[in-house]
């Protein structure tokens, strides 16, 4: 099974009792691609990642992951995939070096010592090697987790909210590292809640209530959202916002600092409802909808459809 895709799955389904957590999701991720996986909390992102790396048994679906049958060969996939959990899941009572060495042994690395050294060096942890993992700050823990996921030289990395609780500088460094690794040919599937991170991904998928609602590049997703957005500036914006909310066609009214974003999927209706307010002291301009506007719109509508 040779293909251009590191992940190529269809109909992936997982049920917890009567609840369908992941509903017939199809996903294709090319080698060397950074695929951002977004969606509200509890939408099934983590469950999907866990199914891909064999931590959960899917209830349905087929396809391949790194050229291996993702349902049958989960043992082989485990050896080729790096999975970074949402919560720090290395041993806090082991040092950085001991943690890396432990993981290297589990994967049966032939050149274990060199692999550990390399990994320490690349993450700039040579001097901190004897520090207990439990005493590291959030940013360093995240770097250690990434280093540990990379030690067995996986082809595919599944990162579950890797930057939650990490400061902006560390987040930027982290994303630079991700892009560098992707350039070397590694494939990434990353879940995140941050819009700036989403826009740094090559392609995106948006999942809500177990359903993949939109996917493609940032532009594709924005286009698929079909949202019309107006930006309003002027005085007394919060009073205006109150008046606009609930009008037919007005789906979102969000304050962005000194401006108000008013959006809806039905441009006609939206215009009809907002026209009476397009007077002084307010200044209205049509703008491109942002990713966030689209995601919130998707989330709201999906609630009606699936909840």
């Amino acid at each position, binding site marked *: 099974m040779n293909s251009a895709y590191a992940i190529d799955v269809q109909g992936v389904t997982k049920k917890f009792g009567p609840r369908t957590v992941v509903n017939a999701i199809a996903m294709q991720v090319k080698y060397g691609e950074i695929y951002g996986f977004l969606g509200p909390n509890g939408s099934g992102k983590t469950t999907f990642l*866990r199914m891909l*790396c*064999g*931590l*959960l*048994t899917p209830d349905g679906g087929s396809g391949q992951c790194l050229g291996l049958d993702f349902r049958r060969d989960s*043992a*082989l996939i*485990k*050896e080729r*995939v790096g*999975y970074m*959990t949402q*919560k*720090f*899941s*290395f*041993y*806090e*009572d*082991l040092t950085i070096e*001991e943690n890396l060495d*432990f*993981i290297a*042994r*589990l*994967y*049966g690395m032939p050149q274990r010592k060199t692999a550990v050294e390399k990994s320490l060096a690349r993450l700039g942890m040579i001097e901190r090697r004897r520090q*207990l993992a439990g005493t590291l700050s959030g940013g360093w823990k995240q770097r250690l987790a990434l280093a540990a996921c990379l030690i067995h030289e996986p082809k595919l990395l599944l990162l579950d909210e890797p930057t939650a609780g990490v400061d902006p500088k560390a987040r930027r460094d982290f994303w630079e590292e991700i892009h560098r690794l992707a350039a070397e040919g590694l494939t990434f599937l990353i879940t995140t809640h941050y819009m700036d991170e989403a826009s740094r991904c090559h392609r995106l998928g948006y999942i809500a209530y177990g359903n993949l609602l939109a996917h493609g590049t940032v532009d594709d997703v924005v286009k698929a959202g079909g949202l019309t957005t107006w930006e309003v500036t002027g005085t007394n914006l919060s009073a205006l916002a109150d008046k606009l909310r609930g009008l037919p066609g007005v789906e979102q009214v969000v304050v962005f600092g000194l401006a108000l974003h008013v959006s809806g999927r039905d441009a006609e209706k939206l215009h009809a409802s907002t026209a009476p307010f397009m007077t002084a002291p307010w200044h209205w301009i049509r703008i491109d909808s942002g990713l966030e506007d689209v995601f919130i719109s998707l989330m709201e509508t999906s609630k009606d459809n699936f909840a």
Partner: protein
Amino acid sequence: MSRRAFSFSRFLAITLKEFIQMRRDRVTFGMMVGIPMIQLILFGYAINTNPKHLPTAVYAADNSTFSRTIVWGLRNSGYFDVSREAHSAAEIQNWLAEGKVQFAITVPVDFSRKLLRGEKPDLLLEADATDPSAVGFAVGAVNQLVNTVINRDLKGPIAKLQSTTPPFDLVIHQQYNPENISQYNIVPGLTGVMLTMTMIIITGLAITRERERGTMENLLSTPVHPAEVIIGKIVPYIMVGYVQVTLVLLAAKFLFDVPMLGSVPLLVVLTFLFIVANLAVGITFSTIAKNQLQAVQMAFFFFLPSLLLSGYMFPFRGMPGWAQDIGECLPLTHFLRIVRGILLKGNGLAETAPDLWPIALFVLVMLTIGIKRYRQTLD
């Protein structure tokens, strides 16, 4: 598929990790060595199932040679400390009720008169039997004693009153521990009790801890095999178990002078099976328990019947049949027979065999459950 076969390297990874964690967890490590020492000293020196020097009151309503002889004889037996002399029967009752004395002996008013007349007078021994084991041996001693003591005073013209000897002599020969020294029973048994307690609790925590700290998710995402995790986690604690056994055996020899008639190396080898049995229980519990607290609770759930029904605390043969049946299922029961057999009776492999296979069967069942229960996924 060869990839799924047991990998020594992965097993080693788990074992080394457990050793490092054990070394860093000072409190637990201290407990593993501390618990056996505390138990040894407490139980070894404190528990006595053949108590002596029990406080005794005497009410000699008949102040005669005979009553004085009886008191003297009781004292000499070592079981009784005649600490109080009562002046009324009521006083005796009070002392017994208040727990001031364990025994009270009443020599009735006309004791010597009746005795001399050959009327077989009563001698009243009252015992506080709230704790039956405290009085058992002592009461046994009284019967024998009063006879011999009194016979000594029945001489000259009254010699004919000496109780006639029974037509046969019952010879009682207490084997293996003739002096009934409790330590000989308790200290070797402690090896088993201590191993049961620490091994089950510590390994019970081993897997639940991984789950509670979230490291299980990580472990499961690697190619590690359940058998590698379980055996890798067991091995370090086998060594801890041996440290404990060594401590107890050294104390048995040098502190308590417990006889070691059989082969100590044989005991050490057979202990292996027992350690594995307990570790298997702990691991199995930890695959069932949702968190560390539950694991500890389960360990106690197993530990109490082991302590009470194995024959460590109470005589095994004194229990009703169903309780003995439960006892037979517990590895501690069999291990106690092995360790007492080897040390006190000088048993060899042949004599211990009947107690070996039940432990082996137990290990097999427990490990199978443990490995089956160990989930390779988070489902």
